[in-house]
């Protein structure tokens, strides 16, 4: 029995995701909305790594005469690394867009960005 049940991690991830969702839904400032998205991505990563650690198949191996149980894959971590890389790309492009919008409109309030409204 591991010291920490897996659902503790899942609960933390759920809390992070919900707070991120709330920030994304309520904030008017575009930068704040982006922060909410980052929080949600963090929650997803935490979930992936927790389930990788607790629920991926194990392999028995004998090393130096001792029998050990190894996790047979690192897929959860690989997934998290890809998510982090894409989050970095998303943050760079998103913030560049915010700066470009600020140049032309002098605001980053999402409610005032209504150029496409008929």
């Amino acid at each position, binding site marked *: 029995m591991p010291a920490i049940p897996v659902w503790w991690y899942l609960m933390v991830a759920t809390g992070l995701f919900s707070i991120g969702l709330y920030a994304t839904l309520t904030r008017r400032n575009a930068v704040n909305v982006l*922060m909410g998205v980052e929080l949600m991505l963090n929650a997803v990563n935490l979930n992936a790594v927790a389930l990788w650690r607790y*629920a991926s198949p194990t392999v028995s191996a004998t090393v130096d005469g001792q029998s050990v149980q190894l996790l047979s894959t690192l897929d959860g971590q690989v997934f998290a690394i890809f998510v*982090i890389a894409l989050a970095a790309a998303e943050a760079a492009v998103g913030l560049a867009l915010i700066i470009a919008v600020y140049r032309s409109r002098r605001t980053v309030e999402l409610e005032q960005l209504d150029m496409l409204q008929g």
Partner: protein
Amino acid sequence: MSPLLLQQIAFMVLAAISLSGAWGVIRAHSVFVSALWLILSFVGVAGLYVMLEAGFLAVIQVLVYVGAISVLILFAIMLTEDVMGQAEPASQWPLAVLIVLPFFGMLAKAAFTADWQLSAGSVAPPEGASISAETAKLVTTAIPAEQGFRLPGQVVMLGRSLMTEHLLAFEVVAVVLLVALVGAIVIARD
């Protein structure tokens, strides 16, 4: 104190750090302070990665999120507005609470009740999933299973995994990063 209890206390502290950081993001009264709380939350999540024996990921988290993305966000704030300006009151918050609370309840119930098929030593090795003695040597040097496996071996395994079975995704992400880099420069300059 038993190591078990110590682990649980460490988990509680790290979870409190990451959740209070996230709470600070939505409660802070200026965008700049929000960003600082966000950094705290990222650090807490990095600590949770360490607890999950994903040390390399914790380092990546600190480098990319705490180091790069936070600085990017702080720069964006400083380039776009009056840094210490008052944040506007959150709009439409009752509606958002109405969406977020049931969502949270649903996920929490799922996390609590689902049968996760945990592999805590009970799963038989999958067919054909054998690892070479050489790899096993890298992964662990006689560390019993319940103590987990060593970090350096894990990093080697991770590198191999990226360059073999996940090679296509790895290359695609590399191209996406390059395009995002060029695109961000093109968009941000006049």
